[in-house]
């Protein structure tokens, strides 16, 4: 075996082994050691995956556990074991997860000074699950990592033991556990028809089968599960609760990597397993596209009407997931490249923003932009991170996210571009408005955000500002890397996500400078800053109707777990109806 083939399982085994070892010895270890070890492990995972990404440029790196290669059975189409496969995109995303975890561990230094290193055990298991999710080529193995990821995330959300944290974690657990049942049922249906779990073998079997309700149902269930994790309308309701109440270092991982990883998983399945099935691809190009647009718009508007910074960022994450889903549904090579780049850019930006919110929660004991009015003055580092983050979300023509939007626009229609610009502008302007209020004491009268839910919980201020600001600023700086630096790698990654034997895609140079989203952001931002009390009858009527509209949006995100489950059923019904329509 080559070095890369040996390293492939190590990327998962290392964090698993260290986490379990920490747990076994927790009672006897000095308290500082787990923190240091966790950072080192995250960096090591990142380094291994970078090596894997480089090695996989020469062809996919594969590892068959227990030596059960597809030939081991001696029967065509029978894969007895589980395989891992590193293509450039998967390995790069796993490396990104390692990097984000290292940053979150530095950010959390001192925050989780409890006995027994439980936080670090949970986080390392979380990291292992994410790397496994990226690297596996087996559908049931994907389910296992999906579920390990979920269980670690449930526990981490409830970790602060505040009221909101507990209830948010409960909603999160119920909805995502349901999602995992859907994933398992879908896996079962696909197995019943194809007799395998291996992506490539399943793809070959699917291409032979043609139209078949069982396969479509399998896809729908798997997609619904991954869309729940990726927070796509109408499966998205849990996210705002969970991300708003989880400890800030955990929210960094949730928004930065976990949700977009689910979308990456779906993109991988669509590219590797289902391309041979016309009905499924019809659903992808039709329904998923529409859901992406609806998600971007609804969540963008809701984000604009939030006052709790972490909840605002959570809705912004949902909106950006919607944007990514439109790229996934498009499915062309450039759109896939755009999707991959967008995951990185968005993850870095959102990670930095959640860290800035965490700094406010620790040092100013709130994340409510109205409560914090003017109280952030003097905190230049989080101000810089929030300001830059808001601009990047809003379409600043620099950095990875802008490069990604440029790639996605190449094959997008007019409607897509309008919705994407609007959603970006809404989220960017919302972040900038909060930043202006908190750090600059500049604001107009609060609009609909005054009515949004909020929370008084805060985090422990037990570490110096620079230690929290350093990872935040590093992430923002990385998000500002010019996209040209990664273009050749991105071309190979986008092409080989579909088929390992394809030559690298030649991506076009940066297209025209698209300033429309940034201008729209500026307009919305100015609108929020210049807003005055409505005194004249006409403006009062406008304000009233605006409030009614936003109140409906807030009512949709009610926080009641029963509502969330009902909407998930509606989402499944949408898939069923779309499949019935496309089947004629």
């Amino acid at each position, binding site marked *: *075996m080559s070095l890369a083939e040996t390293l492939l*399982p190590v990327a998962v085994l290392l964090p*698993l*082994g260290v986490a*379990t*070892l*920490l*747990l*076994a010895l*927790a009672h006897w270890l000095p308290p500082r050691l787990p923190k240091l070890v966790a950072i080192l492990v995250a960096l090591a995972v990142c380094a291994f995956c970078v090596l894997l990404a480089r090695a996989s440029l020469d062809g996919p790196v594969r590892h068959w*556990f*227990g*030596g059960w290669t597809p030939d081991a*059975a001696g029967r065509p189409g*029978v*894969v*007895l*074991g*589980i395989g891992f496969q590193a293509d450039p995109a998967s390995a790069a995303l796993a490396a990104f997860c390692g990097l984000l975890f290292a940053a979150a561990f530095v950010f959390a230094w001192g925050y989780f000074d409890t*006995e027994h290193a*439980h*936080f670090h*055990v*949970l986080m390392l*298991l979380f990291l*292992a*699950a994410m790397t*496994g999710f990226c690297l596996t080529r087996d559908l*049931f193995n994907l389910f*296992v*990592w999906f579920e*390990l990821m979920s*269980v670690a995330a449930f*526990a*981490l959300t*409830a*970790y602060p033991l505040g009221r909101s944290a507990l209830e948010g974690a409960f909603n999160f657990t119920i909805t995502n556990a349901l999602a995992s049942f859907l994933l398992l049922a879908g896996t079962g*249906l696909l*197995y*019943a028809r*194809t*007799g*395998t779990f291996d992506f490539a073998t399943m793809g070959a079997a699917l291409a032979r089968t043609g139209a078949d*309700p*069982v396969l479509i*149902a399998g896809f729908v269930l798997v997609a619904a599960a991954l869309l729940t994790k990726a927070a796509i309308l109408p499966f998205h309701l849990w996210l705002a609760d969970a991300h708003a109440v989880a400890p800030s270092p955990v929210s960094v991982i949730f928004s930065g990597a976990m949700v977009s990883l689910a979308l990456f998983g779906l993109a991988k399945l669509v590219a590797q397993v289902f391309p041979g099935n016309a009905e499924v691809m019809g659903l992808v190009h039709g329904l998923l596209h529409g859901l992406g647009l609806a998600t971007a718009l609804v969540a963008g508007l809701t984000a604009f009407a939030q006052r709790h910074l972490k909840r605002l960022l959570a809705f912004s994450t949902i909106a950006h997931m919607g944007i990514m889903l439109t790229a996934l549904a498009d499915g062309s090579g450039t759109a896939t490249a755009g999707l991959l780049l967008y995951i990185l850019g968005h993850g870095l930006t959102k990670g930095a923003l959640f860290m800035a919110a965490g700094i406010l929660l620790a040092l100013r004991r709130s994340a409510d932009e109205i409560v914090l009015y003017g109280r952030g003055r003097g905190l230049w580092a989080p101000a810089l991170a929030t300001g830059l983050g808001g601009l990047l979300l809003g379409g600043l023509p620099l950095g990875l996210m802008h490069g990604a939007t440029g790639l996605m626009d190449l094959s997008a229609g007019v409607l897509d571009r309008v919705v994407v610009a609007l959603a970006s502008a809404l989220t960017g302007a919302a972040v900038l408005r909060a930043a202006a209020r908190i750090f600059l004491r500049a604001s107009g009268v609060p609009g609909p955000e005054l009515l949004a839910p909020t929370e008084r919980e805060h985090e422990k201020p037990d570490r110096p500002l620079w230690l929290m600001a350093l990872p935040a600023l590093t992430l923002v700086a990385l998000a500002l890397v010019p996209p040209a630096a990664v273009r050749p790698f991105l071309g190979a990654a986008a092409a080989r996500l579909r088929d390992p034997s394809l030559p690298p895609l030649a991506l076009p140079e940066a297209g025209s400078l698209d300033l429309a989203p940034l201008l729209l952001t500026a307009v919305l931002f100015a609108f929020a800053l210049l807003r005055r009390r409505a005194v004249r009858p006409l403006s009062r009527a406008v304000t009233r109707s605006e409030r009614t509209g936003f109140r409906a949006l807030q*009512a949709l995100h009610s926080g*009641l777990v*029963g*509502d969330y*489950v*009902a*909407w998930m*059923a*509606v989402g499944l*019904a949408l898939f*069923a*109806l779309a*499949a*019935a329509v496309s089947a004629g």
Partner: protein
Amino acid sequence: MTPRWRLLLLALALAALLPAVLRVALAMPEFGAPTAVLGQSVNALVPELRHVANMVAAVNFDLRGFDTLGEECMLLCAVTGATVLLRGARGERGDVRAGHLPGRPVIPRADATVLVCRVAATLTLLFGISVALHGMTTPGGGFQGGVIAASGLLLLYLGEGYAGWRTLVPSPVLAAMEGSGAVLFVLCAGLPLIAGHPALTNGLPLGEWKDLYSGGLMIAVNAAVALSVTGSFGLLLVEFLEETREPADAPASNEADHEDGTMRART
């Protein structure tokens, strides 16, 4: 949404799903005559390849052993999470006073209860170990055996009372069992890599079919799982039963609230 509207929404969604479910059910492979080739290939090939009688164990511990590692870690993760959630609020020390409902008499434990519990606990433990040991030959294995062994711990609680139970079952030891079982599993997966083989390669002698020693590395993996599951479930029992305790120095104002919580949690 009010519950009524929510129910209406669900009813509409389910009504829309019904035709789809029927179509899928009609298109499913014939019940009792599955077309998936993998399962029958395992039945046909693996007894020869791995010398074990229990195909489910072969799938769990060898063919798809890596799934089982993830699953094992999932259990460990959930138990760690539950420990954090339950222990976070009350701290590390075990509390001395039992939660007590006003008005309910406290009846001392009968000698017969103690005796029966001691006998039954021993038998349960032995049964658990036996189920785990025979994982390769008959239905059973590390998961099932571990759960049975851990549930024997409950009988100790019943027979010995809380204080005796806590002395017999220290939670750091359970955590160490849980963790070291999983570490052993990771080592089983990782050590073959050092020798240049794929992870989880079954390099041990395979043993005899229907023998207690059959399946090679699967035995080590099975033992790791049994150890870890016993620790996990034991820890879970300790943490949940700890909830029935009263903090010895609980302030009076908190007590009513706490009492209520314990009562509802138990009923």
